[in-house]
């Protein structure tokens, strides 16, 4: 059976996507935190000079994201959250997207989820993830990051 036939009509319920995102939203910082402790990357004065806190924060977050999701994303189009909620990312044909598309394009939207938490610093940009989500109200249930990456989310 071809991938396109297999996934053509299966739109997962929106709550599954939200739960999946919530799981990732919590797990990535949690793993970042463990990495921070083990590596000591935020332990010294150097880490707080100039833009170093942001730079190192991005390194920790990216590493944690890839450790958690890298293998699953590349092989099955899933993050931990999506795996737990039995959904996955596919191309419009229903195939597993290219790894670079998932990691270098689609995953770039993931850190934007934290903008509301940073509202005092980012101001109006805190609404960006909600705008992203609003696109998913369409019939195709494709959020903005899906449109940019040429993907959609399907039930497993």
């Amino acid at each position, binding site marked *: 059976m071809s991938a396109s036939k297999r996934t053509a009509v299966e739109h997962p319920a929106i709550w599954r996507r939200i739960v999946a995102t919530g799981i990732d939203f919590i797990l990535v910082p949690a793993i970042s935190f463990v990495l*921070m*402790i*083990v590596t*000591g990357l*935020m*332990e*010294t*004065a*150097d880490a*707080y*000079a100039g833009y170093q806190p942001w730079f190192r924060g991005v390194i920790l977050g990216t590493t944690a994201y890839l450790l958690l999701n890298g293998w699953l994303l590349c092989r099955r189009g899933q993050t931990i959250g999506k795996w737990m909620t039995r959904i996955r990312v596919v191309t419009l044909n229903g195939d597993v997207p290219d790894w670079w598309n998932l990691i270098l394009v689609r995953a770039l939207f993931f850190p934007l989820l934290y903008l509301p938490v940073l509202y005092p610093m980012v101001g109006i940009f805190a609404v960006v993830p909600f705008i992203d989500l609003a696109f998913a109200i369409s019939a195709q249930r494709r959020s903005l990051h899906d449109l940019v990456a040429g993907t959609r989310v399907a039930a497993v």
Partner: protein
Amino acid sequence: MFRVSLIVGILIWAQLSLANESCTQKPGINKFFQTGWGVDLAGQRFQADTTITSATARELSLKWSYGFSTDRPRVFPLVSEDTIFIGDGGLGLVALDKHTGCTRWQNKDIPDAATAISHGTIDGQAVLVLSGRESGVIAVDAISGETLWQRTITDDNPVAMYSGSPLVYEQQVFVPLSSMEIGLSVIPFYGCCTTSGGMAALDLATGQTNWYLRTIPEQPEVTGSHYFFVQTHGPSGAPVWGAPTLDKKRRLLYYGTGQNYSHPATTTSDAIFAVDIDTGKARWISQFTEGDAFNMACTTSGVNCPDPMGPDVDFGAPPVLVQLNSGKDLVLAGQKSGDVWAIDPDTGDTVWHHKIGRGGALGGVHWGIAYDPQHERVLIPISDVEAMPGEGEAEPGMFALDAATGERSWSVPRVSRCEGRQCWSGLSSGISTGPGIVVTGGLDGMIEIYATDNGDLLWADDTLRDYETVNEVVAYGGAIDAHGPTIADNQLIVISGYGGFGQRPGNALLVYEVTKETTR
């Protein structure tokens, strides 16, 4: 009727034109009424060049006010013959017309101005030097407001904090250095602490470092760990967050240090340094409290709090160099513990010592003392805020000590005022003196002038209110803290509001005047 309207219209137009013209004029730089924190290089905070005296102080009235863009202004003005230069929160450094308050220029390169302003000359060009809390030191052309150079001093400390006011003398800028580690220690997973306070001497023309002296000579080593992976370090701390004082005769720089951030405690914390301004070598270092290790983790019972925890009794108030009528020189220093020390400037030995109140982490003597050369008295504002208080009774108020002996000449306790304000009425901010007067600012928002001969209250004003401002920023008064009031010419300049350390925020720059007629 038409004629009257015409005349009134012309007068209004002329007034507006004059006001605009004064704002477009370049600042006058022929005369500066002070330099840096201490008014003079000796840090006495005594303004001789003023018409505000014990005879005229009662005639002071508010001339104009200006609204800062921050509710925790931590700045101190520099006044020339026609301009007030002052840092303004996120706006940068501004030059205000002394008589109208309108803005002559604005320099946005220093968004976190946090110090007094010192001045010098580069090839005949008047230069203003000040520091931003994190953005570092900046030198600005006094006339145009253009930045000449700006730099951070991070060779020894990657998280240096520029809390203390720089001082310009000859062709050097002396820059006190504190550290962000005092606050970073709150983070449980931070390996507290590795940085040392310091003093840097920069070339005024270029900003390049001539010399740099750590307050802790030893390099930090690992002292243990917590949470399995997080290594702790020491020694650290001994920051310099007060301005230096300069002794031209001995070519020495005097400055105080704070506590250690972590153990082992050193012999250079809570100390007064005397350093050769040409070589950067310490002539003497006198420590007045041993074993004081403290950081902000202690305020949250954090894991980085040193054990044992010290009392946090820095020398934040800059030392004051005085010459008595007997010809003897003294360095006078007030400590957060409430101790006042008179020190021999040649040896660092204690000449006399006087303890006032109970002291604590926010004073005791918090920001600064001043000197009255006419009566040879050292004026001591006491805060005694309930913050890690020392032993004994609190004595918030104003004290005058005989500079030669340390004996108390007079004292005035502050009255608690609770209506619509925080009740604690201690004096935390720096103070200023003039002919026969001492000007104080209270944490309760009151500005007061006392006679230095007997402590009589001559004048007071309650700044805890809203103000209409010349820059149309909504301004309101709050606690008077940090650098405190200053006197120059016929003006008293007050910064009301300081939303740090739980004090009442505010953003009012208030300029009071005695009229020229009054002073004749």
